[in-house]
């Protein structure tokens, strides 16, 4: 069988594609990779299509046994990758022989890794996507996290396996801290001037309650002045402020609707940075206009397209 078998799933390993879109009318959230850049590169390095299914691990400690020859790539957090005990580089693809063991250790910097296999993991879609959302018990295998003994079927690789590497200069630095860029919106105008100033002037600490649903922060309280509001749709990166004034950044597995006031939403590129930072990390916010946000997204996309083309050329 063309498959990889989980020997140790680590703390949290999830099968994921780009995410589940267009299903909010059923109450289904998007899920998908917390660090889309690392996800995209993992697939590109093994020659997969952009929506192929990979494994996202949080805090590493994943090991798999290959029951077929295959090509793999690991991207994301700075974690050791070993194939039969021999160290291999991140952000590169590697040949794996049948019978070999792939081990991903604990990250030194960053939290999440993406492991892609040439051909992708063959997983049934649910509501158009393989992305696992634990809260909904949907996607992946059984709607749950990977477990010891799980057999992951490897899809047919579209091309002959060849190894390639991302240029060193393009590898993200997960240790580089920067303010999270926030597009103000939603109930921003309902917060007092003092609250808004305090929010942008203060440092917040990522609390231990930080997961794929959202990151709860601790720091100076930001009272909203709103007593009650009707539940409404929540965008990726929305910063909601419950009654205790402690902001929560809502991420991929957020509920589709909610009734707490929101200051606006963090730029998706910065949600990806945040998702690689762990509890205790100190962060701050800075406001950006929607125009700047769109420009940043276009620039990022242009850079990604260039990198992907470069990797393809390397293959030819």
């Amino acid at each position, binding site marked *: 069988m063309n498959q990889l078998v989980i020997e140790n799933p680590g703390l949290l390993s999830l099968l994921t594609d780009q995410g589940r*879109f*267009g*299903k*909010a*009318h*059923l*109450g*289904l959230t*998007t899920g998908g990779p917390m660090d889309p850049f690392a996800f995209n590169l993992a697939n590109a390095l093994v020659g997969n299509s952009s929506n192929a299914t990979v494994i996202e691990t949080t805090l590493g400690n994943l090991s798999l046994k290959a029951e077929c020859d295959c090509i793999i790539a690991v991207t994301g957090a700075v974690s050791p990758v070993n194939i039969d005990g021999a160290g291999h580089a991140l952000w590169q693809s590697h040949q794996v022989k049948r019978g070999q063991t792939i081990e991903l250790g604990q990250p030194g910097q960053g939290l999440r890794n993406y492991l892609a296999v040439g051909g992708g993991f063959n997983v049934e879609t*649910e*509501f158009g996507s393989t992305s696992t959302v634990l*809260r*909904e*018990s*949907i996607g992946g295998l059984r709607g749950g996290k990977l477990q010891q003994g799980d057999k992951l079927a490897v899809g047919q690789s579209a091309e002959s396996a060849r190894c390639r590497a991302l240029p060193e200069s393009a590898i993200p630095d997960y240790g580089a801290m920067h303010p999270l860029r926030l*597009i*103000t*919106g*939603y109930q921003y105008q309902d917060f007092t001037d003092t609250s808004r100033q305090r929010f942008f002037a203060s440092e917040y600490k990522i609390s231990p309650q930080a997961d794929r649903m959202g990151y709860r922060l601790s720091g100076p309280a930001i009272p909203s002045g709103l007593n009650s509001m*009707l*539940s*409404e*749709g*929540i*965008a*990726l*990166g*929305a910063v909601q402020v419950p009654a205790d004034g402690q902001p929560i950044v809502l991420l991929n597995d957020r*509920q*589709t*609707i*909610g009734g707490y006031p*929101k200051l*606006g*939403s963090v*730029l*998706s590129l910065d949600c990806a940075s945040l998702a690689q930072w762990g509890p205790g990390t100190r962060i701050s916010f800075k406001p950006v206009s*929607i125009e700047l*946000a*769109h420009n940043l*997204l*276009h620039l990022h*996309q242009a850079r990604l397209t260039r990198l992907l083309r470069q990797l393809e050329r390397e293959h030819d």
Partner: protein
Amino acid sequence: MMTPRIDIAGEGALIVYLGDQVSPKLAATISALLPQIKATLGDALVDLVPSYNSILVQYQPLKTDHFAVRFQLTQLLSQQLNQQSDSGNTRLVKLPVWYSEESGPDLTRLADNAGLSTDNVIELHQQSQYRVYAIGFAPGFAYLGEVDERIAAPRLATPRKKVPTGAVAIADRQTAVYPAPSPGGWNLIGLCPHPMFDKSAQSPMPVAVGDTVQFYAIDKDEFLRLGGKVEAFR
């Protein structure tokens, strides 16, 4: 009705506020707008999240931009306001409920607090037609409103660890059927045997935002005959 307002929600999202007060008319306006927004935005649309008084419009910022989307929405809204939205013309979905103390452990307490008999509570819950105002919290969880104010009841101070599939519940003036087991703080008054979220079905949910729901009472035998299962309440 207030003038619609369009606010920024995120890098790829605008939120349209269509009113301040929850009403069946507003719900009808919102559900009438959904297909129009879909048709107008085409493949630049990522998803729509309708709720009580708003629609979150999520678009792909690499395919369009917020100026274009705002313009398209403004145009749609001005056309919509010239039309009289017909709040009577919605789908009516009838759902069976086995009301009892055995299937609804909060029924007696709710009745006592309201100064009513349990029969009164059951009757009042069936009398109204409810709007589906929003779907969220969990897959298939439909927020229905509004219940007669005599049977409105605050959430439990301590939520239950497990509310079973099919539990029919009241919180304030909202009512709902739990689509799957989950923790929950709503007051439980019965069980509905009809699945509210079946991921293997062609249409996974019996209701959509804007539909009307009415409940009707069945007994335990009928509940079991319709495929209902009795799980423990915790």
